[in-house]
């Protein structure tokens, strides 16, 4: 009923910036969908186009069964939470939450009641008479959510709602948001530039770059099998090691070492061709002593990740990062060896993942298929 279907949706700003470039995408009903990408890639533009705050320059947009491409924002039945929450500073929490109802001409008594109920659900019952300036960031965020929920929209749009919170609160808010969306079951599009947030929250993720979607898939698809080096370097709380390599008959030569060819692309590589060997720091196993088929280097930086350490080695293959258990002693200047987990290594040719079959971007088949349902 409230799926969002974009068909060749395009947005060109007056200055000529092509912020959305023929986006084909379907967000399923009830799905928690994350838009991820670097600054300026068009995430906000896409969200605003769905909300109707920007008029599309081409293509069409449907929410549920209705074509809303030309519908003004107030009639699209969507609610948006802005990065700065956009709480009205002169209204109390109760008034803020009730505002959409006021616009919809709900009688005063009824809307006060409803606003109080919604705010109550989000644990704001004690703050109804405060003004936004008197609330902490996390509370403000909940007010913004309550306001978005108050008029039971068919779609939630969140533009980086967590980025204003401090690190600690962000974690709590994220869990809260996830649980809330599960309970309400409202289709949700969530913009972020923090990949950890996207991975943690989303049912599916679209990774964007300069107005286009570079990969579409579930968090684990995107995390485990980034469709291209762009996505690979973008996803993961520690960036993936992307190392230049040359295909040899018995493996892939990286920085002078021969590493075993991963199973998937195995049959699809040509001897002597240049590829990029991708392996996440989490999938490199540390060894203090030389091991054949491993990457090596001198320990340059050790960063504490809490229960583990991120070690940066500098060696013939360049910088290589790997995650080492907290109990393993690693000292600066030591020589270290990193053994790749074969089943997790990926190979990119011309920036694209070399795969066994189906399109890893999830774009052609996936999007079309879901679009057709």
């Amino acid at each position, binding site marked *: 009923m409230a799926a969002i279907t974009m068909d060749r949706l395009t947005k060109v700003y007056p200055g000529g910036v092509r912020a959305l470039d023929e986006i084909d995408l379907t967000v399923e009903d009830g799905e928690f969908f994350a838009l991820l990408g670097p600054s300026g890639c068009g995430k906000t533009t896409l969200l605003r186009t769905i909300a109707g705050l920007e008029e599309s320059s081409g293509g069409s947009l449907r929410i549920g069964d209705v074509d809303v491409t*030309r519908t003004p924002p107030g009639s699209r039945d969507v609610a948006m939470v802005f990065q700065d929450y956009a709480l009205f500073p002169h209204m109390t929490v109760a008034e803020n939450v009730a505002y959409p109802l006021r616009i919809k001409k709900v009688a005063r008594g009824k809307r006060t009641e409803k606003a109080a109920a919604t705010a109550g659900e989000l644990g704001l019952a004690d703050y109804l008479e405060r003004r936004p300036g008197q609330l902490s960031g996390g509370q403000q965020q909940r007010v913004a959510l309550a306001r978005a929920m108050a008029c039971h929209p068919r779609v939630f749009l969140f533009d980086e709602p967590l980025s204003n919170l401090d690190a600690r609160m962000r974690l709590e808010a994220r869990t809260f948001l996830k649980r809330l969306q599960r309970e309400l079951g409202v289709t949700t599009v969530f913009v972020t530039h923090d990949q950890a947030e996207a991975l943690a929250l989303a049912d599916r993720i679209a990774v964007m770059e300069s107005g286009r979607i570079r990969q579409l898939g579930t968090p684990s698809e995107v995390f485990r099998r980034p469709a291209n080096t762009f996505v690979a370097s973008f996803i993961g709380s520690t960036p993936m090691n992307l190392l230049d390599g040359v295909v040899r008959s018995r493996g892939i030569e990286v920085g002078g070492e021969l590493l075993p060819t991963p199973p998937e692309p195995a049959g699809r590589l040509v001897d002597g061709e240049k590829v990029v060997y991708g392996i996440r720091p989490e999938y490199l196993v540390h060894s203090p002593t030389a091991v054949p088929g491993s990457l090596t280097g001198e320990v340059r930086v050790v960063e504490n990740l809490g229960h583990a350490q991120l070690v940066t080695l500098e060696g013939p293959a360049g910088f290589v990062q790997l995650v080492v258990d907290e109990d393993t002693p690693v000292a600066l200047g030591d020589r270290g060896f990193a053994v790749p987990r074969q089943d997790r290594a990926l190979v990119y040719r011309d920036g694209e993942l070399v795969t066994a079959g189906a399109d890893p971007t999830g774009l052609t088949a996936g999007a079309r298929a879901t679009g057709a349902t």
Partner: protein
Amino acid sequence: MNGSKGRPLAGAPAGRTGGSDAAGLGRRRAAGFVAPAMLLIVAFLLFPALWTVYLGLTDYQLTGFAAANPQVVGLENYDRALGDDRFSNSLVLTLQFVLGSAVLGQAVLGFAIAWLMRNRVGALRRTVEALVLLAWILPSSVITFLWIALLDRDGGTLNALLNTPGTAWLLEYPMASIIVFNIWKGAAFSMMLYAAALGNVPPSHLETARLAGAGTFQQLRDVVFPRIKGHVLTNLLLISLWTFNDFTPFLLTAGGPENRTEIMPVFIYRIALESGELGFGAAISVLMLLINLVIALVYMRLLRQRKDASA
């Protein structure tokens, strides 16, 4: 009002106006918002102003034959004004007045107060601001009396205070007196504007300069001024225009002694009201407008330079 009919129509042009049109106003509705103000402005400002420009081309007078039969005399009035010592005298005086009281006086004093009070809260700041603002909002006819009493030659508060009995400030230092008077009267606007502007200077910038060892003057020069240049220019533009058109000193000195404070608005008042030469007065008003225009252009030029510089 929120009925579904008409909405898609209204929404369509709204979007096209670009990202800054956050409320989806659209040009048509925007025009509707502007219309009431424009109507009043056109009727009671534009129209009389154009009429005045026309009057400036005639020999129209309030009374006498020229009132019954005004003749279009072309640029004669302008010719006369430009050759008139009184005009050039009043122009020079006006420039002194604007420069002294607005550009140097109000702007500098207003800035000084805003700067020194920027981190203060509480009674001191409120008192200072209230007093300064009071001078700004009291009616001119009242404050001129206050100043006449202050500067009076026998028994005036100032003479009593400075122990300079018998000094006739308004006669001996007429220009200085009205300049100081106007500083007193108008510093509030600059103070408020600069207080707001200083609020926009990030403390971290000032602190970076302090950490590098910069003194107050260096902080002002390197951090504050570049940051509030736009405000400085808005402020100068408005207070210059206002001071240029300020008639209040007339109430204090009546343009005297010996026309030594006959600034342009006073000159026009005398021409138009005391001599009834409305055509000539209108022509001088237009000249005054042109001088204002030049000042505005100079300011805007500076503004544009700033824009280029920060681009």
